[in-house]
């Protein structure tokens, strides 16, 4: 551990390595590298389409196995069989792979026979499971059929009890028609024999449709009756349980019955014949019951076999899935490699942190000796001018802060990492807005709970929002801590104040009730805001001016601090022209206007205006007058103020053309004089964008991939030809305008600190007076109860509204201050992230979800 450099201030130095790996051990070698997780392989076959690569067949085979495994997993979920997940497999802390992997020691790679086993197993099991599943489905179908039959039989009694009524009604229909035809009354029993019926079951929502259709087609020449069935039936088509109803239709005539049957079947009804004789019906019922009993037994055994099979699978499935995914990753990596001319050796290229090359070589040698093969793999460093990936070594503490920065942009290779100062500035800017000891304390406690239980929580599955809070636990911890500090300075604890030090104000001794009192200044409060201000009428007036000036000063200091990083960057990349042409004029511009304002603020504070008997000048008007009417001063802050201000204004104005012209002109002259020599590497955005573009162009312009590495070394130092004078000029114009405007707008932007902290303090005061203070006025048992309830209400609202909501908004504002106001001062952020080849844990659930969502799209 100790020989590794820390790579948090600047990203780690990377070198491009070339590996020559004999084909026989290529799988094992890649496995070893994957366990180490420090190599980012370059794709050497980017021109070859994915299905033309060397190991496509293997990958396809493994894809199939993965599909089978996902199918098993779906079955497991369907039958509620738990998946056994080995916790050791699951959460090897992925944030520390870079530094931790070497200490694990290389594991033995999975032998290829194991993978073959997985493949065979997968196919066998899939066939078997599909068989069992379809058998179970068949039985389910039969069962549903029989159950429906039984239901119809059971409801038959009810149907036929009303039969007589039906008979008579239909008979009367008949009779009327007969009468109208002018014949004599017919025998009732003769009609009775003509009445036929249809029985069956139909989904509940289609009953009305059926009835209406039949009514229309038969012109009311029927009797329809239906009974709701209590138990739902399994539908094999939709694989779901459906609520159904049994129905019976009486109607005269065979032909009509045929039509009714057709209509009913077209509406998904299942028709069953039952007898109108009660005895025969009960006989039918008993046979059906017997059949059903048999069926239940068969179904039971089938389900048991299926479940035991699934349990066996569930125990191993995760392990298999992990093995197969690793194997697939290996082949995908191998696909990035090149074969040499006689196809014996694989050639790979990859980025490795320079200080870990030794560790990598050790691992490879160990692997070859263990395998007992005497063909070593050769590792060789390459000289290159490609942009190396950016790799910051993070730990669990810094990872959260680093991710804040990475969201905005990956740092350029070896530039100052904005994540390092963010560790303090981000929570602190938050705290200025969120300053309240009580709220900060709640936040601190919440974060502490997460931090202290992090081992346990790390093994748990977390949902999205909780996961966000968990990864940001150290951020929240520091935010809570600094909030407590600023709350202490603001003298705010749940909007109340503490009287720790001696107040700097003294109230007059003798006064009448209701008289307006003015305190007398006797000293300065030692730490934070004086508690004498609390509850006064003009407290807001004072804290307003205090917080506004505080936010301007803090903002100015924060920006200057960030701006200094750009100097450090320029010095590191050794680009003098950026210092002269960009940094110095920018600095003078910024300091001349806003630095001057800040100095004035402090000066005004430190001078005793009342003793001098002069009116204190307004600083805002002073600044405005400095531009609009240079040289005229309304109220003098200090002697010779006019001259100083004119001088500063002129200096700032000179800086604009300086910023605009020096760099492009320098570029033009050096180019004319020396022709081919390009600018030294700078951290200017446009410069590097074009460099990387050049890299990209070169890759595409070369036909043969092999030529790329030969070409690499020749390209050294010539990658900057693409820039024209006009490009540089335009970029510089944009940069100048942006910088000058941003100076103004960013300083103004820091006023959000003022606004939010005031809003927070006011909101907590309002909450206090609206809830808990009401209860203090009451007496007796009502007072006790009120205090109890209002305290609960106050506490819940404090947590929800003030801590969570206000905290989120303050956090977003702080985020913006960092991304926009601070990082624009020095951060280039056009780096390539370092994504080493490493085996991770594949969660089956997410894998299944992904595959289903991708197929459904």
């Amino acid at each position, binding site marked *: *551990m*100790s020989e590794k450099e*820390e790579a*948090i*201030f600047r990203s780690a130095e990377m070198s491009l390595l070339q590996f020559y790996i004999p084909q026989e051990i290529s799988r094992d070698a890649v496995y070893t590298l994957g366990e180490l997780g420090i190599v980012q392989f370059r794709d050497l076959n980017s021109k070859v389409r994915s299905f033309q690569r060397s190991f496509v067949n293997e990958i396809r085979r493994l894809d199939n196995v993965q599909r089978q495994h996902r199918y098993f997993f779906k079955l497991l979920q369907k039958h509620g069989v738990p998946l056994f997940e080995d916790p050791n497999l699951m959460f090897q802390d992925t944030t520390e792979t870079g530094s931790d992997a070497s200490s694990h020691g290389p594991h033995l790679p999975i032998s290829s026979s194991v993978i073959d086993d997985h493949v065979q197993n997968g196919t066998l099991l899939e066939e078997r499971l599909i068989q069992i599943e379809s058998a179970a489905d068949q039985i389910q179908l039969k069962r549903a059929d029989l159950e429906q039959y039984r239901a119809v039989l059971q409801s038959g009694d009810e149907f036929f009890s009303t039969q007589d009524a039906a008979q008579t009604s239909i008979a009367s229909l008949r009779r009327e028609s007969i009468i109208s035809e002018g014949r004599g009354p017919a025998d009732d029993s003769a009609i009775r024999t003509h009445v036929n019926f249809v029985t069956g079951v139909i989904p509940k929502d289609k009953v009305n449709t059926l009835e209406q259709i039949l009514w229309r087609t038969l012109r009311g020449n029927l009797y329809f009756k239906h009974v709701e069935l209590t138990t739902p039936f399994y539908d094999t088509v939709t694989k779901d349980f459906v609520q159904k109803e049994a129905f019976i239709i009486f109607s005269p005539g065979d032909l009509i019955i045929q039509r009714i049957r057709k209509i009913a079947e077209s509406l998904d009804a299942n028709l069953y014949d039952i007898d109108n004789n009660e005895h025969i019906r009960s006989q039918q019922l008993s046979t059906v019951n017997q059949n059903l009993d048999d069926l239940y037994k068969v179904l039971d055994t089938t389900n048991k076999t299926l479940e035991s099979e699934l349990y066996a699978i569930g125990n191993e499935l995760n392990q298999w899935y992990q093995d197969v995914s690793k194997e697939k990753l290996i082949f995908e990596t191998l696909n990035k490699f090149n074969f040499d001319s006689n196809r014996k050796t694989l050639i790979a290229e990859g980025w490795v942190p320079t200080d870990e090359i030794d560790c990598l070589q050790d691992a490879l040698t160990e692997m070859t000796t263990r395998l007992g093969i005497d063909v070593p793999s050769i590792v060789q460093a390459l000289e290159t001018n490609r942009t190396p990936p950016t790799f910051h070594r993070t*730990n669990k*503490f*810094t990872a959260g802060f680093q991710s804040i920065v990475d969201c905005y942009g990956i740092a350029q290779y070896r530039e100052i990492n904005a994540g*390092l*100062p963010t*560790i*303090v*500035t981000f929570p*602190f800017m938050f705290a*200025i807005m969120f300053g309240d000891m009580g709220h900060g304390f709640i936040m601190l406690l919440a974060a502490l709970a997460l931090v202290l239980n992090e081992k346990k929580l790390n093994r748990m599955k977390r949902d999205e929002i909780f996961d966000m809070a968990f990864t940001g636990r150290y951020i929240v911890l520091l935010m809570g801590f*600094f909030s407590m*500090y*600023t709350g202490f*300075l603001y003298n705010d604890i749940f909007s109340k104040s503490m009287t720790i030090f001696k107040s*700097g*104000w003294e*109230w007059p001794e*003798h*006064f*009448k*009730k209701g*008289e*307006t*009192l*003015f*305190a007398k200044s006797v000293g*300065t*409060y*030692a*730490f*934070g*805001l*004086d508690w*004498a*201000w609390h*509850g*006064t*009428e*003009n*407290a807001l*007036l*004072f804290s307003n*001016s*205090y917080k506004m*000036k*505080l936010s301007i*000063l*803090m903002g100015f*200091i924060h920006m200057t601090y960030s701006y200094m990083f750009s100097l450090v960057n320029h010095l590191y990349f050794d680009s003098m022209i950026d210092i002269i042409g960009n940094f110095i004029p920018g600095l003078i511009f910024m300091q001349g206007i806003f630095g001057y304002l800040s100095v004035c603020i402090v000066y005004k*504070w*430190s*001078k*005793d*205006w*009342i003793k001098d008997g002069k009116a204190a000048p307004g600083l805002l008007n002073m600044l405005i007058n400095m531009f609009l009417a240079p040289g005229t001063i309304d109220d003098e802050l200090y002697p010779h103020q006019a001259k100083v201000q004119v001088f500063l204004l002129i200096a700032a104005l000179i800086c604009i053309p300086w910023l605009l012209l020096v760099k492009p002109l320098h570029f033009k002259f050096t180019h004319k004089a020396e022709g081919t020599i390009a600018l030294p590497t700078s951290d200017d955005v446009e410069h590097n964008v074009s460099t990387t573009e050049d890299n990209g162009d070169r890759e595409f312009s070369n036909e043969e991939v092999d030529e790329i590495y030969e070409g690499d070394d020749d390209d050294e130092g010539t990658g900057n030809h693409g820039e024209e004078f006009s490009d540089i000029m335009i970029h510089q114009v944009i940069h100048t305008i942006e910088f000058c405007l941003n100076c103004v707008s960013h300083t103004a932007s820091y006023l959000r600190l003022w606004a939010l902290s005031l809003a927070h303090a006011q909101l907590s005061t309002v909450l206090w007076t609206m809830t808990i203070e009401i209860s203090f006025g009451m007496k007796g048992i009502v007072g006790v109860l009120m205090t109890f309830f209002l305290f609960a209400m106050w506490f819940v609202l404090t947590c929800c509204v003030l801590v969570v909501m206000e905290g989120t908004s303050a956090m977003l504002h702080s985020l913006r201050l960092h991304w926009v106001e601070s990082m624009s001062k020095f951060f280039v952020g056009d780096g390539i992230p370092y994504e080493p080849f490493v085996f991770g844990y594949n969660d089956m659930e997410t894998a299944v979800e992904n595959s289903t969502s991708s197929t459904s799209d």
Partner: protein
Amino acid sequence: MTVVVISSYVFWIMAPKENRTVWRSTVILALAMMYLMWAITYLCQLHPLVEPRRSDMRPE
């Protein structure tokens, strides 16, 4: 001021070996910001231009 500078310096030397950069920068930056915050608060109360005013006090 001196307290902060001295404690920063002491910490610069005392910083733990592991993750030294992070420790140093974090602690010193935090100290500096906390000091600044205090200084601003102190300064603004050094020579106050407005005085607290209230009319809801009851005589003892």
